[in-house]
């Protein structure tokens, strides 16, 4: 569980996070949604330790990040898996080298043990015939699978995903969403996904935090979001005709 208490972050005169508090649950996919500029990337980067909040605390299962010393922070980081928006795979490495990288860096596993673990996660994310290929030789969807495999190879407690569906076709996006959700419940990981994809919200939104102008505007789950009266949320969610019709159908069914 990740507990965020009143975090604030400014860049120069611009205050991007104005005091966000929430609890991100273990074994669930926690989605951070909001319009561009709402502060969700800064929020995610603050959770990851890339940005240091000006005030407030972030605790990982009781460990307050700002109170940890350098070694404890390093230890905590080995418990984190991250799927970047553009996958961020290492160009110079093959798929299996990319996936095995955290094991090679942070464990004392032998080459054989690394190979076994890499083969296992490659099977788990259903990557076919990609072991020896470079990231540039595989499709965007496969790159996302490699990024997920790399993020989970060292059995993380926390999985962060920044726009995991960006640049993918709707069908592949659903496959990636489902894969993340399956992995989350299978390994009991605290997963945090930064997205503005409403299909993801509908598919895997166990918990949804809606940010607006650097503040938490609303939180709930994927069923509650279709029934909320919060104007900012409805403006965001029902900006497309398709979702307006979905909401009408949901409300009709509810009535």
């Amino acid at each position, binding site marked *: 569980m990740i507990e965020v208490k009143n975090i604030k972050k400014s860049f120069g005169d611009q205050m991007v996070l104005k005091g966000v508090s929430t609890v991100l649950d273990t074994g669930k996919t926690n989605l951070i949604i909001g319009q561009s500029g709402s502060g969700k990337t800064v929020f995610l980067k603050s959770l990851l330790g*890339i940005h240091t909040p000006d005030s407030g605390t972030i605790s990982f299962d009781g460990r307050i990040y700002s109170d940890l010393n350098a070694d404890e922070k*390093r230890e905590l980081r080995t418990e984190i898996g991250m799927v970047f*928006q553009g996958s961020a795979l290492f160009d*110079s490495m093959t798929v299996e080298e990319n996936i095995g990288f955290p094991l*090679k860096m942070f464990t004392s596993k032998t080459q054989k043990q690394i190979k076994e673990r890499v083969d296992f996660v490659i099977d788990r994310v259903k990557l076919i015939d990609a072991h020896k290929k470079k990231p540039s030789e595989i499709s965007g969807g496969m790159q996302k699978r490699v990024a997920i495999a790399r993020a989970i190879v060292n059995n993380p407690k926390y999985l962060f995903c920044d726009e995991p569906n960006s640049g993918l076709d709707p069908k592949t996006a659903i496959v990636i969403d489902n894969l993340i959700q399956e992995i989350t419940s299978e390994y009991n990981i605290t997963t945090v996904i930064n997205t503005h994809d409403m299909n993801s919200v509908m598919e895997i939104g166990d918990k949804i935090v809606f940010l607006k102008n650097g503040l938490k505007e609303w939180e709930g789950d994927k069923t509650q979001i279709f029934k909320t009266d919060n104007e900012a949320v409805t403006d965001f969610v029902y900006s497309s005709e398709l979702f307006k019709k979905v909401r009408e159908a949901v409300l009709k069914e509810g009535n």
Partner: protein
Amino acid sequence: MMLVRYLSQIGRYFLMLKEIFKKPTKWSVMRSLIFKEVDDLIIDSLGIVAFISFFVGGVVSIQTALNLTNPLIPKYLIGFATRQSVILEFAPTFISIIMAGKMGSFITSSIGTMRVTEQIDALEVMGVNSLNYLVFPKLIALLLYPFVIGISMFLGILGGWMAAVYGGFASADEFVNGLQVEFIPFHIAYAFIKTFVFALILATIPSFHGYYMKGGALEVGKASTVAFVWTSVVIILVNYILTQLLLTK
């Protein structure tokens, strides 16, 4: 305002140097990174260094010969002038400026591309000291840079010898005699001290510009150009300072 910006960049550069040596990467991983950098930075540069050195050595020799119009000036001066030019300046300094273009732009663009594609963020999130992982192997690989300059010196003089002898400007004996006249062994030490300092500059300034760049693909190109300019400027300035310190009495 501009001065403050430059001073802040210089400060940031020295802080980066400090960071490179913190939290070292696991040796088994570092070893393979060093071998890769030796291949990319040193081995891949040998061809162009050999080509340029050989022909520039030849040109120095020919130009010296063509300027010796007075019959009283001995022909061995062709060998003498070629040796002095190649060992003191051409091989250590001008090859380093060429390498600032070749190696420097490679280093800046490869690290810059890793920055814009979030690969450096990925390393940091995993708990890797990205500066140690990316820059330290380059520094170690460039400890072999004096060998490149040694090869450049040899080929520059060989090129000069061939141009002088086969061009009919001097005999082989005269040229070799010129190479030996008033030879000061410290000049070799001076050239290699310079080379060693230039190697550190070549590894770190382009890395700095790649690591701290912001933006996209276009900015990677711009960062490479800026890195080349600054690496060249620093090499020229350091060359002047070291020459003052080491050669003047």
